[in-house]
């Protein structure tokens, strides 16, 4: 889950490439929100890493950009390790 009541030590930070992917498509946050059936505010929070989307929403995002989930979302420790664990599967 995202920030708020959960302390930073407990949270698993997940990074994502949504802002870049959205930019490539030339979509605004509102437009992406419309396609994903979420609010612009939620798109903004996901892009900033303040909210981690649910699995169904992550699948919708992946389907929209025609990518796999792990090509969009990366756990921070994975990205620091060069994505070793992600590439195992």
């Amino acid at each position, binding site marked *: 889950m995202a920030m708020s009541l959960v302390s930073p030590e407990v949270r698993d930070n997940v990074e994502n490439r949504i802002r870049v992917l959205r930019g490539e498509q030339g979509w605004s946050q509102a437009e992406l929100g419309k396609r994903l*059936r979420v609010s612009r505010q*939620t798109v903004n929070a996901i892009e900033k890493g303040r909210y981690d*989307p649910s699995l169904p929403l992550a699948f919708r995002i992946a389907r929209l950009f025609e990518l796999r989930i792990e090509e969009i979302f990366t756990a921070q420790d994975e990205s620091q390790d060069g994505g070793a664990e992600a590439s195992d599967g």
Partner: protein
Amino acid sequence: MVDESCISEQGASCRSRGRAVLVWSIVAALAIIGSSALLVWREWSLGAGLLIALAPVAPFIGMFIALRRSMGRLDEMQRTIQLEALALCVALASVVSVVVGQLQKLEIVGELDLSMGWVVIAGSYIAAYLFVKSRYA
């Protein structure tokens, strides 16, 4: 606040539902204030007194129905925010009620009208909502 949380393709409908919650909340608040004032103002027969005392229940039911419809239009993050705000609101309202209760024992605070408890709950909820929302912005 309502506009921002609306899902784009449902914008107009969502905004009108948000307005409905606001309108019903204002009507409920006015009904409580009006009802309290009328009950203090003069002696009523039992039937009339009951009618006036329970009059605020109707707008509150309207507010709950509007709130339920409005919640159905929120996306997953907005629901998370509402849930966390609710949890904080309960904690805040509990602390306030305990503190006020203790202060009453010391007679620092006088007798309070129980029907005004909604003010504490509403105030706690607004504070909690703004706090939680700011952490997702």
